[in-house]
């Protein structure tokens, strides 16, 4: 394990500019649209990657070229033209705005409702912010603390340069290049993402990424995250941000891989609030993500997601319970409004003995949206005495939306116990009236009822995320019961 030199680190942080990890090489050029082997080579060269990684990308590209875009999900959209996308563009230098007055007032209103501080509002909407000494020192002490413990937390690009052996050992081991169409595409052209390594026996003392949210903006459309928790370690990782994120990139095909070694535990929480498009769904983001974790002996991976954004979502955070006594969890709230479409769920693959999984999925559909849960619980022949418990509930806000459940269960071991519960309910006029009669206004009443419905999942989020996520739910459903 390489240790980071403290002095060097302080130098780096207190140095000329605010630069660590996530905001490295700023190039000015953008590749012209189109995808071919040359483009893959160029990306790899620009990122100064070792040969093994270039070959890995090329292999992925070859696989992808022979694949077809899947169409089994319960979503309808115009398929993106993959030759019309530019696959390498320098980290976008967003036009800096002089003050908040220049920012879209709608965006500000939402942020205000979310309770985001003024400084943060400026940062998120691209207004030039003077970094006060204080925030730098917070970041420094934060990095120092992690370094002391041997935790590595940096961009994937940096990790490839600084810790190639760790990346090489784990990259693609959970989501191989040929896993699926979008994963193959991502493997060929990913530009950056996050890397996180927790050494043996270390309990990471803070939620990773809370202090780094700034660096998460603009990571691009083909993001790749790799989290490795070594034996007996623990980490809680937060992805995303409750603030509305507008992006010119229509297609997002990210990959997240988690490796949880013996007795390690990883909690991965996401709040996704990409731009869903206008009332007719125009201009919204397509979010096609592959997220998967691998559990070794007695390891645990817990996915928690609150999904409110994107025009089309296609996402199944999954767990491969390979080690005996390992545990997988999936807690999800997916909200769709207007013309949004979400096909989301999980896969729990039980391979080891006495493996356990829990799935709690809460769908909320409104407007003319379509919200599907798709889940697979697979018990392999060797998975003696394994257990799964699934709950998938749907809440309908209007008569025009749709909620669908596609649960697949494959049990190949007779000792397995699988429980599945599903309910569909419509938000009741009676419930809303009851609240109103107590002096609670309609919008607030809907918020209250929805939060109550999603409570089992919201409770799983880390504290600081949970409050914002609750507000986000309310905002996402504003004006949805008419």
């Amino acid at each position, binding site marked *: 394990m390489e240790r980071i030199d403290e002095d060097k680190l302080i130098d780096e942080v207190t140095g000329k500019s605010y630069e660590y990890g996530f905001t490295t090489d700023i190039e000015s050029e953008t590749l012209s649209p189109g995808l071919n082997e040359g483009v893959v080579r160029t990306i790899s060269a620009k990122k100064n990657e070792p040969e093994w990684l270039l070959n890995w990308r090329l292999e992925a590209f070859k696989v992808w070229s022979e694949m077809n875009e899947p169409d089994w999900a319960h979503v309808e959209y115009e398929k993106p033209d993959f030759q019309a996308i530019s696959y390498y563009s320098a980290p976008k230098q967003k036009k800096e705005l002089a003050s908040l007055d220049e920012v879209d007032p709608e965006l500000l209103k939402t942020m205000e409702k979310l309770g985001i501080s003024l400084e943060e509002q400026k940062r998120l909407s691209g207004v030039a912010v003077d970094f006060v000494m204080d925030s730098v020192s917070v970041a420094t002490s934060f990095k120092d603390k992690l370094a002391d413990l041997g935790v590595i937390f940096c961009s994937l690009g940096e990790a490839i340069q600084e810790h190639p052996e760790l990346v090489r050992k784990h990259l693609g081991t959970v989501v191989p290049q040929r896993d699926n169409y979008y994963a193959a595409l991502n493997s060929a052209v990913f530009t950056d993402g996050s890397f996180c390594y927790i050494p043996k026996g270390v309990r990471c003392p803070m939620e990773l990424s809370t202090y780094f949210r700034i660096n998460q903006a603009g990571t691009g459309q083909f993001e790749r995250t790799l989290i490795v928790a070594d034996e007996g370690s623990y980490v809680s990782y937060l992805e995303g941000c409750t603030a509305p994120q507008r992006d010119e990139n229509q297609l997002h095909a990210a990959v997240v891989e988690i490796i949880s070694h013996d007795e390690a535990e990883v909690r991965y929480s996401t709040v996704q609030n990409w731009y869903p498009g206008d009332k007719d769904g125009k201009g919204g983001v397509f979010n096609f993500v592959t997220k998967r974790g691998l559990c070794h002996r007695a390891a645990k991976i817990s996915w928690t997601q609150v999904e409110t954004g994107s025009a089309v979502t296609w996402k199944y955070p999954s767990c491969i319970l390979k080690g005996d006594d390992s545990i997988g969890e999936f807690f999800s709230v997916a909200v769709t409004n207007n013309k949004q479409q979400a096909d989301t769920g999980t896969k729990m693959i039980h391979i080891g003995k006495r493996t356990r999984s829990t799935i709690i999925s809460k769908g909320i559909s409104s407007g003319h949206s379509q919200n599907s849960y798709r889940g697979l619980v697979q018990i392999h022949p060797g998975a003696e005495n394994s257990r799964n418990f699934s709950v998938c509930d749907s809440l309908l806000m209007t008569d025009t939306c749709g909620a669908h459940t596609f649960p697949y269960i494959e049990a190949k071991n007779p000792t397995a116990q699988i429980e599945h519960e599903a309910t569909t309910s419509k938000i009741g006029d009676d419930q809303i009236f*009851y609240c109103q009669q107590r002096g609670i206004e309609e919008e607030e009443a809907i918020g*209250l009822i929805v939060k109550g419905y999603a409570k089992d999942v919201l409770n799983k989020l880390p504290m600081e995320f949970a409050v914002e996520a609750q507000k986000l739910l309310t905002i996402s459903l504003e004006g949805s019961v008419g």
Partner: protein
Amino acid sequence: MLKINNLCAKVGDNEILKGLNLDVKPGELHAIMGPNGSGKSTLAAVLAGRDSFEVTEGSVDLDGIDLLDLEASDRAREGVFLAFQYPIEIPGVSNLNFMKAALNGKRTHQGLEPIKAKDFLAKVKECSSLVELDGQLRDRSVNEGFSGGEKKRNEIFQMAMLEPKLAILDETDSGLDIDALRVVSKGVNAMRSSDRSFIVITHYQRLLEHIVPDFVHVLSNGKIVKSGGKELALELEEKGYDWLKEPSHDTSNA
């Protein structure tokens, strides 16, 4: 305090209230009795602002405010409280959070700061002891898994928390055993004061032995057809309602 003048209301094409008049002064408790389908629960719902009923005529004035002009939530904030005949379950929302939202809604309306946690808890303690609602029920989700009696006690608990000007009790006695009836009545009686009025809707005289009314009205076919003192309830118990029913000229609903 409350002045109902020639109130007419319908659901779809079905007229239910047909020119109802009622005058309630501060501190008074009016009982409204009447046969099934006479419009008792509709009156409660219309006063509370349920929008599935359409008011076609008449006015309702609460201390100079035109109630019919307000949203249900604003009526509540102005001091109208309805104890539901069938209290609604709201899974996942704790009774306490629910009450806090309600109380703070009212306080915001009155230009007050949200209630302090300490004061809130003290109030909860005081009000829940009034109806012998134990701590567990307070912390559970609103009405979820409550027995019939617990739900009704919870309604009175909420009433005590919100301290309304006008409390409407819609068949609060239905589904209560004798002990629960006593507890609920005790709670209501404790809340009676010179500046709070009650409209108590009930089928049975039984409730009025515990909650003694100042006036009793008989509602029949959408109108008040007889009014009297508390002794009228006894008379009704004895004779039933038939002798009061207006000869019906209604031939449309054949």
